[in-house]
């Protein structure tokens, strides 16, 4: 263990501010230990601020690792299918894809329980999936159909799975951060049957995600201040994919070391392209928060392959080589595949087979999303308020929508 920490600090020098840092550590052989269906995987080195950080060895099992590979393969396929459907105009409007960043959602799910809250931005399809929703419902939401996750009412940016405490995407950059802190407040409040200030434990935490661009919104800092003041079990997860739309972090952030940006909050910079790194650090931060010490920051060093949204080719502000280089050297799926095979949990042939199955499943979901019915008209004016609409929802009465209300005629 100590030796590994030594390695971590030796690599640390390379990590700071260096784009090649992560590929450097990948170049060395993956360290794993195996014992039957149980295994241990060495995670990427981490950078710590006001914390010692977690052990660099993380436990796993065959069941977990195989399922993880299945899930991450599904996520990638989901996003690629969404891309194709968008290009053939089956999906319209705003659509932000998550391919490249899947390990964050997946690792976070492994490092948390379904009682923990998760809330994120508009790049939300994979979180919806990993918290329990089906690919069918997600794709049907993207096509705006009644069978979608939000009955076709929300679209790409607005899907939720409250059953497993996923509080969804958000179209307004940064708006989900105070919401996440609010969920943390709720968790602490319920655990203590009332408002408890100071270092009091709770039973669940809130993973509150936002981007490197969103990190500069005022409400992020406001939420952090209150979270620290009230020692809320809130894990602020900044997904640093290097760009907010076309703006690189260096052009938008005075301090690009997001994990140490919020004195006095402790933080860790995590390899966000490694499922097990994410899992281990989420677990570590979670334990810290549950004990009542207050909020924690995790910076996920990650990368999005696609442009910002479907209308951005994603190559005007970064080079093709940059994208393909990261795909080649840091791809989270490739890495997980290597781990799974090195652990001896799956053979190459079994992986191929799994990929085929996933593909067929997602293809079936695509068909479902294409052929599901449109939402009923009433979805336009229901759920604005708690009660059935008329005559409260003005405008929607009458065939052209603007007749005089029936009750006024009498």
């Amino acid at each position, binding site marked *: 263990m100590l030796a590994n920490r030594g390695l971590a600090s030796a690599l640390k020098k390379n990590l700071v501010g260096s784009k090649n840092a992560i590929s450097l550590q990948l170049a060395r052989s993956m360290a794993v230990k195996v014992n039957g269906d149980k295994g241990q995987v060495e995670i990427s080195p981490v950078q710590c601020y006001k914390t010692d950080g977690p052990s660099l060895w993380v436990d796993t099992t065959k069941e977990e690792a195989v399922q993880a590979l299945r899930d991450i393969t599904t996520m990638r396929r989901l996003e690629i299918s969404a891309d194709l459907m968008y290009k053939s105009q089956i999906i319209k409007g705003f659509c932000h894809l998550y391919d490249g960043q899947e390990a964050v959602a997946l690792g976070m799910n492994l490092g948390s329980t379904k009682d923990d809250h998760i809330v994120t931005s508009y790049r939300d399809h994979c979180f919806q999936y990993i918290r329990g929703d089906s690919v069918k419902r997600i794709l049907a939401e993207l096509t705006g159909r009644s069978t979608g996750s939000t009955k076709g009412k929300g679209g790409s940016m607005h899907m939720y799975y409250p059953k497993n405490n996923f509080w969804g995407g958000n179209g307004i950059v940064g708006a989900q951060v105070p919401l996440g802190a609010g969920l943390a407040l709720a968790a602490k409040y319920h655990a203590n049957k009332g408002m408890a200030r100071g270092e009091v434990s709770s039973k669940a935490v809130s993973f509150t995600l936002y981007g490197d661009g969103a990190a*500069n919104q005022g409400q992020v800092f406001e939420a952090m201040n209150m979270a620290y003041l009230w020692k809320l079990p809130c894990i602020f997860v900044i997904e640093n994919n290097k760009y907010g739309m076309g703006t690189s972090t260096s052009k938008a952030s005075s301090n690009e070391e997001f994990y140490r940006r919020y004195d006095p909050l402790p933080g860790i910079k995590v390899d966000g392209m490694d499922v097990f790194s994410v899992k281990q650090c989420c677990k570590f931060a979670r334990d810290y928060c549950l004990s009542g010490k207050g909020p924690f920051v995790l910076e996920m060093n990650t990368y999005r392959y696609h442009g910002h949204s479907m209308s951005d080719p994603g190559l005007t502000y970064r080079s093709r080589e940059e994208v393909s280089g990261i795909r080649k050297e840091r791809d989270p799926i490739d890495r997980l595949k290597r781990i799974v095979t090195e652990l001896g949990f799956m053979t190459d042939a079994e992986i191929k087979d799994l990929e085929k199955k996933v593909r067929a499943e997602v293809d079936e979901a695509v068909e479902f999303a294409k052929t599901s019915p449109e939402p009923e008209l009433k979805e*336009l004016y229901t759920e604005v308020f708690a009660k059935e609409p008329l005559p409260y929802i003005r*405008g929607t009465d009458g065939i052209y929508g603007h007749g005089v209300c029936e009750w006024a005629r009498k």
Partner: protein
Amino acid sequence: MNLVGAINNALHIALDTDPTAILLGEDVGFGGVFRAAVDLQEKFGKSRVFNTPLCEQGIAGFAVGLASEGSTAIAEIQFADYIFPAFDQIVNEAAKYRFRSGGQFDCGKLTIRTPYGAVGHGGLYHSQSPEAYFTHTPGLRVIVPRSPYQAKGLLLSSIRCPDPVIFFEPKALYRASKELVPVSDYEISLFNADVVMEGSDITVIGYGAQLGVLEKACKKAREELNISTEIIDLRSLLPWDKETVCKSVMKTGRCVISHEAPLTSGFGAELAASIQKECFLSLEAPIERVCGYDTPFPLSHEKFYVPDYLKCFAAIRRCIQF
């Protein structure tokens, strides 16, 4: 020239003719998401055209600061739906600077440009028309152009106007609306509504992208019902040109108002209330409002939500047949 081209052209002229003019906003250095700021940084340099971090409250605050200290500050909020983080700076600061300092200073050189309105698939947060929140704020001017020619002239006037202006650009028309636009420098008065078409039977009032919808409805009314419609483009919502509007309604005796924003407390409410006060004895029918519904902006049902030309036509007919 299309509408986004006209905006771009106006910005070129504004920066060219006023050495104190500055353009700031998210990604404007790259031309902005709608390309309204294209080539401006190349031409005027990074000290006059620059990107800001993703922080609307900051953008508004910085622009107020610049404007109060002698710069002509033109700020872009990427979508009108994102203006709410900046709401406080606009409503509580920009709008009240002159009044609360007893005229010692102001931020009249401030213009905030922002694209608004439905585009067919924008869903909840890329479609809204938030103009009425701002028309409820004395000290601001609120301008909405309907076409490329109008957009250029009104934007230049807004930038040069000594009051803070919120300039809502109909993004649905950015590329869809094309017309001849002089490349020269010209302004359009911020005080006068525009009588787009004269008529005698009914006054139809709108602004921005809705004007096109109203023109279509009026054409149908003319062809099918032989109705002579007078169409008014408000152009400036705050302050608005009561005289032009009321003279028209006194002449026609009937009035239909239309906007995309929801019905309740929409700008049409202000128009209807003022018109009935001024024109009470001339009115032959209740004033009709054809607006968005009182629902969040829907994704799948946008086509039902928007006050399309058929709804406007139906309202014209109801008003005539009353």
